[in-house]
């Protein structure tokens, strides 16, 4: 494993900006979380805008009756003509009557519910008392005034932590929603190293919520889990410093952190990971020619930007022009930041107009950005990779390293093949 992927404490210079942000709010996380936790329902308490956002971000309405919905606040609630809590209780009761398969209900706060100071925590407690043991009711906020995009998942997972049972058993917990296939691959890698028990947060079924305690070590699978990590620490758990499992190098560093903690011998580690590493290097290497020396510019989106930039820089030889991220968590990125080139321009927060000016000035070969910006940039002749795909596609682990690289290759290749 590379020396650079070790923990350090030097902070690179960061450009911090404040202005219009072209990002989703935390509600968007519901789009994948409701598929991940199969017996959970996400009830946004908000406005028609919230409902429209989730529906539009989901892109297609593929689910007959999705496990999410919006309790839309209307003028009667605001004018005090209706008791908002009574209204909420009525809607929740109707919902749970219709969906007896739901075991876990999240009341999800939104911008309007936060501004009118609707106490969803108390509402969740009240409803939990009524519906336990059949349904557990929890709350978190996905509001845009507090959360950016993936921070919604962070808030959701943090809300699960107090619900976890206490355990004194030594275990490894993997924290952050991963595609089921990636989860299965990691589980078998840990098995091969003899590390166990291994638990996952979030679980696929709410009843499988892992327990936590002083003997719990956890690996973050996603870089945006600030509050979840804090909550786990408060329960006595300990984070293993590691890079994020993107690319061959990141995955190896991530697995190695667990191996070290659980006393796995170098030989056993090498044995368990050799095949995966070889395949990942091969698959990534096949894309290198296309991407090497290409200049990439990241707009802030999911907080995955720093680990992705590290992967593109180190394993594919790309040049990093600017790496924007909505929020830079120095501690969780302690194994990532030192692996970036010294001269890299990092930026945190956003003023989209100024950032677009910089981007156009630099004329990158490829821009990673959200859906609102991608087509306008393409129309200006700039190749883009929409960042949301990086969340909706399995990209973590050895077997997906090539796929991750391919996501960046495809837009460039497309530009080459088109003769129109």
């Amino acid at each position: 494993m590379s020396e650079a992927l070790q923990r350090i404490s030097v902070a690179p210079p960061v450009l911090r900006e404040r202005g219009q942000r072209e990002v989703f709010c935390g509600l968007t996380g519901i789009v994948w979380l409701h598929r991940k936790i199969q017996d959970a329902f996400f009830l946004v308490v908000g406005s028609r805008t919230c409902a429209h956002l989730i529906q539009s971000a989901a892109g297609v309405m593929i689910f007959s009756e999705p496990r999410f919905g919006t309790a839309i606040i209307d003028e009667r609630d605001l004018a005090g003509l209706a008791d908002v809590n009574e209204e909420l209780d009525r809607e929740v009761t109707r919902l749970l009557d219709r969906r007896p398969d739901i075991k876990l209900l999240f009341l999800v706060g939104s911008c309007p519910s936060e501004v009118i100071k609707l106490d969803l925590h108390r509402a969740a407690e009240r409803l939990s008392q009524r519906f336990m043991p059949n349904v557990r009711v929890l709350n978190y906020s996905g509001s845009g005034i507090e959360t950016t995009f993936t921070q919604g998942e962070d808030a959701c997972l943090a809300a699960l932590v107090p619900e976890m049972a206490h355990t004194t058993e030594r275990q490894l917990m993997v924290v952050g929603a991963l595609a089921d296939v990636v989860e299965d691959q990691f589980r078998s890698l840990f098995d091969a190293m003899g590390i166990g028990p291994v638990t996952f947060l979030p679980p696929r079924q709410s009843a499988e919520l892992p327990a936590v305690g002083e003997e719990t070590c956890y690996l973050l699978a996603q870089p945006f889990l600030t509050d979840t990590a804090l909550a786990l620490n408060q329960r006595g758990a300990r984070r293993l410093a590691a890079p994020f499992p993107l690319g061959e190098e990141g995955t190896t560093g991530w697995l190695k952190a667990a191996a070290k903690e659980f006393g796995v011998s170098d030989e056993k580690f090498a044995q368990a990971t050799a095949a995966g590493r070889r395949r990942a290097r091969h698959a990534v290497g096949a894309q290198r020619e296309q991407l090497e020396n290409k200049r990439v510019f990241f707009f802030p989106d999911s907080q995955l930007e720093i680990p992705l930039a590290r992967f593109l820089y180190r394993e594919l030889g790309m040049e990093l022009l600017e790496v924007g991220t909505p929020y830079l968590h120095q501690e969780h990125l302690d194994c990532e930041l030192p692996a970036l080139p010294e001269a890299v321009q990092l930026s945190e927060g956003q003023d989209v107009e100024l950032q677009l000016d910089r981007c156009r000035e630099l004329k990158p070969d490829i821009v990673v950005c959200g859906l609102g910006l991608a087509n306008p940039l393409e129309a200006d002749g700039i190749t883009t990779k929409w960042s949301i795909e990086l969340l909706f596609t399995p990209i973590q682990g050895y077997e997906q390293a090539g796929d991750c690289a391919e996501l960046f290759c495809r837009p460039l290749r497309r530009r080459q093949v088109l003769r129109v």
Partner: protein
Amino acid sequence: MHLTVWTYEGPPHVGAMRVATAMKDLHYVLHAPQGDTYADLLFTMIERIPRRPPVTYTTFQARDLGSDTATLFKDSVQAAYERFQPKAMIVGASCTAELIQDDPGGLAEALQLPIPVVPLELPAYQRKENWGAAETFYHLVRALAGPHAPPPGERRESSPDGTPRCNILGPTALGFRHRDDVREVVALLQELGVAINVVAPLDAAPADLARLGEADFNVVLYPEIADTAARWLKRTFGQPMTSVIPIGVNATCDFIREVAALAELDAQPMLERQQSRLPWYSRSIDSTYLTGKRVFVFGDATHVLAAAKVARDELGFEVVGLGTYSREFAREVRALAKEMGLEALITDDYLEVEQRVTELQPELVLGTQMERHIAKRLGIACAVISSPIHVQDFPAAHSPQMGFEGANVLFDTWVHPLMMGLEEHLLGMFREDFEFNENAAPSHLGRYGGPTAVASPEPAAPEPAPAVPASDGEPCWAPDAEKALGQIPFFVRGKARRNTESFAREQGVSTITVETLYDAKAHFSR
């Protein structure tokens, strides 16, 4: 408070964005938290417009709420003016900003910008997208054309060269086929000898809105969006407005007559020239099988009213249900439903629509993208006739709904998803053919819409419909009757099941036998 799973309309500020994005030289400053920028992707991804919508979002955060969101708003307006140099601006609040009551209009006015700044008050907790678009368009028209209104009591001057002139009002960004409808209607009007003064909001600049009063009359294409503005223009400039929406051959002819009357022109030569293929295609004998196809129609009021008439009068379908989510135009939809002997479904609850479609078991659904999903799940043919829409509703080809070419498009897109006539008969005759059976998709639809027809030597035996109904007074199916039902082609099986059960209930039959099935068939075919 009410629970919604999917919503037919966005919030009203999205309606304002549709107007702003359609126009040129206009900028919209929206007081909104981060996340509301999602609305940009509706335009850049669904409609694929190659530029950013002209909208600046103030992006306030929780920590700003205690301090000064008003200054943030003012700074955003000033910065947007300097950067984009628009010829006019609209300012307003999204749902969250409405709660913090910063008064965007007053704040923007205080900046004394050298351009018209139009404040919008769009109550997000009462109103929805189409209303927001209508209100925005109305306020823009009032602010920009108003200064050119003739003094009270005086009449507007008519065109200098004697050519009748009209405005075309209503097309916006993200509208269902608005782009193509405009091209079609412009061509119709020009052929008739009417000059186009302004098309708005689509591709209009603020300066164009200022000229609206120069036209002799207004053509209202989408009342959901243009009705309020057109009524104001009528009051202020004495401009009459059209009421016929030219969707379908008959309505297009009526539209030409209406416009000709307003413009004092002769419609006859043009009506005689009309060359839509729909009338002949509908009369062609291969269309006989379309007779009495049961259709369910749902969408915005304009498209539903038009589609129901075209379905009945021009394709010979039987409209078995219709409804709209446009509460503003519920009265018109109710009236047409009554004329058709039906009760209109006025709702914006997707689950209610789904339930109605399930009950009615139509053979074709004409609806929005939402109904397309309902129909897909129920295995019913469907064509999209109205917003909400998706990327596939912005086809590369010119595909209007309006005018004579629009009528051709309607014929193709509504008939295409249905089973072809002879194919339907053959399916009825040889039900157990291993390749050509009910589980195989119609041959002209490729593999779309049906399970793949794997050449298995076994006949597709299992009956997928839910088994025997519950015992609470409901008739139940004897096994042989169930089997006979299974041999009825799937596209009419739902109807047969429903008819037989209601017949059995009527007759007090508790067990449905093959006899009951045929009795019911005879009963309903009278």
